[in-house]
């Protein structure tokens, strides 16, 4: 008893909260890019928040149910159609065996999160069902879902008709503001270049995926001259290989910043000017190509306060849903 995939969409992957603990071996944490939306989707259908669901980018899949269950869709705004009848987002709704769920054109955001009562029960690898295609880990045989796949569901927790008050959701600014904590190699670019990075408007490039989000439109960076250290490449953006924290902003050649996301490599030979703060990483998962973005400089205190505020927002939603 399960869900059958009739259309897979562009790249629809099984994701949960990832597999922390292996980054030092080069295996990324992975998991939902917009963890806020994945957690809320699970809350809505009465699952443990870390249960596995689907992450669908830009296009929704088409799914046929072979059992009665409950479904909630969060994240991007896209018409949600059950047997052609529109269903609300950020709400749990019952589904009968034989019904078909599909989606209209994307309106806002980039990634849908679809939770099912009981969660998707594919085998966990290294503690997670999250799909990491490059490492062939998790998902369905280590890959995105495909036509004909049958996705098993776990034992339902406590599904019910629940809905999130949209006033509790995070608000979207335009241009989108991503808060950045300058980091280890910030001193490698000139003060004028540092200032421009925050003053200029950037645009999401089409080469944005689960590994990294690339931005363009700003000025090329000016490097502080130095003699390249032994072991570093000859380009001024090269360093002696270093670790990349999740959210790090690398700028190969000093031209197009790339924010490393959930499936990113753990290290390399490009300098990183800083990191997008953890509270804003969910937002990146909802950026479409060509979206306008500004980077905003913050200090550690602000970053930690933002992390706390994000946690409190989730707690408020948790309590509101528990109260019915």
């Amino acid at each position, binding site marked *: 008893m399960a869900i059958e995939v009739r259309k897979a969409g*562009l790249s629809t992957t099984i994701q949960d909260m990832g597999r922390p603990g292996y980054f030092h071996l080069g295996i990324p944490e992975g998991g939902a890019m917009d963890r806020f939306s994945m957690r809320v989707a699970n809350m809505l259908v009465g699952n443990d928040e870390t249960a596995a669901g689907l992450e669908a980018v830009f296009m929704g899949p088409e799914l046929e149910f072979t059992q009665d269950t409950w479904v909630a869709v969060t994240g991007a705004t896209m018409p949600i159609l059950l047997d052609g009848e529109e269903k609300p987002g950020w709400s749990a709704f019952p589904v009968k065996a034989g019904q078909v769920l599909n989606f209209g054109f*994307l309106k806002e955001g980039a990634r849908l999160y679809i939770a099912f009562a009981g969660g998707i029960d594919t085998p966990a690898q290294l503690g997670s069902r999250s799909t990491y295609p490059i490492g062939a880990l998790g998902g369905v045989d280590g890959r995105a879902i495909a036509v004909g796949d049958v996705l098993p569901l776990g034992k339902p927790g406590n599904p019910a008709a629940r809905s999130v008050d949209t006033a509790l959701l995070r608000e979207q600014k335009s241009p989108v503001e991503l808060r950045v904590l300058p980091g280890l190699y910030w001193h490698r670019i000139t003060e004028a270049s540092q200032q421009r990075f925050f003053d200029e408007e950037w645009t999401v490039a089409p080469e944005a995926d689960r590994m990294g989000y690339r931005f363009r439109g700003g000025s090329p960076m000016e490097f502080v001259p130095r003699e390249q250290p032994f072991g570093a490449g000859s380009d001024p953006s090269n360093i002696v290989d270093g670790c990349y924290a999740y959210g790090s902003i690398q700028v190969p050649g000093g031209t197009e910043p790339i924010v490393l996301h959930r499936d990113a490599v753990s290290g390399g030979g490009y300098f990183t000017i800083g990191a997008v703060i953890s509270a804003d990483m969910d937002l990146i998962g909802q950026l479409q190509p060509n979206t306008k973005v500004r980077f905003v400089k913050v200090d550690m205190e602000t970053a930690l306060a933002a992390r706390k505020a994000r946690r409190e927002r989730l707690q408020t939603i948790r309590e509101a849903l528990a109260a019915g």
Partner: protein
Amino acid sequence: MPDIQSPLPGTFYHAPDPNSAPFKKPGDAVAADDTIGLVEVMKTFIEVKAEVEGTFDGFVAPNAEPVQAGDVLAKVR
């Protein structure tokens, strides 16, 4: 007149590569599973299928420009 809409956001291309002719020119016959263009996103080129039958009536979205999901790419009559 049925419109062909972009299934996803990205960059729209009229031809399979820069040195080839466009997939369709006005007056060409269109079958439902004919490819009329490509949308590039996340380092992937996605073929846009006509999903309607008729006669090609021209591109609406310009070549090599950004499109949003649901944008009209071309017309068929």
